[in-house]
């Protein structure tokens, strides 16, 4: 299994397309950082327009933590495409190249082959998120400095103390990793049904788009299925930035407003991962390799 995982990772990182995702993320984050470095003041004035009359803010709002939050909000919508590029190609790409049949004539169980492929896709996904963390958080901290994190929610403002922010980002990135692994599992599952790479990649994105629309539409017909759609839970990394307050309405350092929501969402995402990968394994074990 370990040998096979090494081989799968070797294959992934030998393909130029793998580095496209890292290059794309570097470029996107670089563009956001450049834009906010040059015109950040105007941006914060625009965002703060509604609060300007009632708030007087001291300090550096446009700090590395704030920039990372903006980056995460923007990027986590697009990262699934970059993940689908690899995950949805894991089986279909091999079928398309014709290497799947050679692979399956080797003395390895089909389950081991599939699990190695999935874990390789997971490693790729995690590396992509680590890269986002390095570029989005660490580089932003270096470029923009650090201070308290000032977030504007729909009906209230959250100010997270500088000393209380970093662990929240660690939690948010871990949750985002789980959400992105769910996307990888979906792409991996759909990859089973095709013998070319484009179909499963497009199908993965289509499923995400449709489910996201269903998750955001407030129509009674869809409300019953919403809690079970993985897209309803993918954005709950933001819950790490809501904290409890004491009777004096002061933030309780190290607290999370609704940890139950994070746990519940994590369980649902995890169940989706098990469902997608388990189904792929069951189907793949019975599949006749004809092409």
């Amino acid at each position: 299994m370990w040998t096979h995982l090494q081989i799968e990772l070797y294959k992934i990182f030998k393909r130029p397309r793998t580095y496209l995702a890292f290059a794309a993320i570097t470029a996107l984050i670089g563009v956001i950082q450049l834009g906010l470095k040059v015109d950040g003041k105007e941006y914060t004035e625009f965002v703060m327009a509604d609060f300007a009359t009632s708030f007087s803010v001291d300090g550096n709002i446009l700090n590395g933590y704030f920039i990372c939050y903006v980056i995460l909000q923007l990027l986590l919508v697009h990262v699934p495409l970059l993940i689908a590029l690899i995950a949805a190609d894991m089986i279909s790409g091999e079928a398309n190249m014709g290497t799947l049949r050679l692979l399956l004539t080797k003395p390895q169980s089909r389950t081991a082959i599939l699990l190695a492929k999935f874990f390789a896709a997971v490693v790729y996904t995690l590396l992509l998120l680590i890269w986002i963390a390095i570029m989005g958080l660490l580089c932003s901290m270096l470029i923009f400095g650090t201070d308290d994190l000032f977030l504007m929610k729909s009906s209230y403002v959250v100010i997270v103390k500088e000393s209380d922010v970093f662990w929240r980002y660690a939690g948010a990135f871990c949750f985002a990793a789980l959400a992105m692994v769910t996307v990888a599992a979906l792409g991996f599952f759909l990859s089973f049904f095709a013998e070319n790479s484009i179909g499963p990649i497009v199908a993965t994105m289509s499923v995400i788009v449709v489910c996201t629309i269903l998750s955001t539409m407030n129509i009674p017909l869809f409300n019953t299925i919403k809690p079970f759609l993985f897209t309803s839970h993918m954005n709950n990394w933001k819950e790490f930035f809501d904290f409890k307050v004491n009777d004096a309405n002061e933030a309780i350092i190290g607290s999370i407003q609704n940890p139950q929501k994070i746990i519940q969402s994590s369980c649902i995402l995890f169940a989706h991962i098990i469902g997608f990968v388990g189904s792929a394994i069951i189907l793949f074990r019975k599949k006749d390799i004809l092409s």
Partner: protein
Amino acid sequence: MQHILKVSNLTKYFGNLTAVNDLSFNVGAGDVYGFLGQNGAGKSTTIRMLLTLITPTDGDIELFGYSLKTHRKEILRQVGAVIEKPDVYKYLSAYENLKLFAKLSGIKPDHALLMNQLEMVGLANRANDTVKTFSQGMKQRLGIAIALVHNPPLIVLDEPTNGLDPQGIADIRNLILQLSRAQKKTIIVSSHLLNEIEQIATRILIIDKGKKLVEDSAAALFDSTQTILQVHTTNNAEALEKLSQSTWANHLKPMRDGLLIFQLSQEQIPQLNIDLVKLGIELLSLQPRNSLEDYFLQITAGKQYVDTFTN
């Protein structure tokens, strides 16, 4: 002889289509086992069942004394295979591909072993080139190196000469003969090309529509005491009419390509020549043949069938 492979009552349905129908055969150690049939006869389906790519609907496959159902991994460690097109990772070099599949075959490959394998198939000087720059023949040779890298006693080659030019076909044929004779490998090779199998096989299985037509040693199939003789005359139709009423009628076979076909011993040929002249038949040519193609003619008694194979 010790049987390496025993196939019993193997059957595969794809929906309503019967791809392989109650097929049984054995392959002995050291055989070059020719697996012959038209396109769609069931060769590839059978080979894929031997390699666990397709699950049989019914029947048993036993390799090296173990059931394939229960000892898949142990068996596949002892098998090397090339299945139709030699597809490998095009973005990797020949060396990287070989190393990768060696590891998957359960061995720890060292540099000398890998280079030795590439040397054997004539790719040592292209070891570090990516496969996307390779010709079809080079890919096929790399496929064979991959099949052999873990030194398996059984090699399965499904249509190994597909898409190759005459030189490539000759190279593969020589490699198979070398593996059989020098390294004592057991080789199962499928093809729809009669002349290919005829030149290398020690035993031959002919299947059609998923059913076994005949299985025997190549020596038994090519009866050296009998010769197929093609006779071309100035008027073959008239000659056939005269010969049908002569003592040679029993030696006449159905006409092929407008030629008269006789089956007879070598010693009878001079007498036939004399009698043809006596009967007033003007000869253009007499051509003795004894090949699998002619054997096909005998067992199938159909020109169309043979033409499909040979064209």
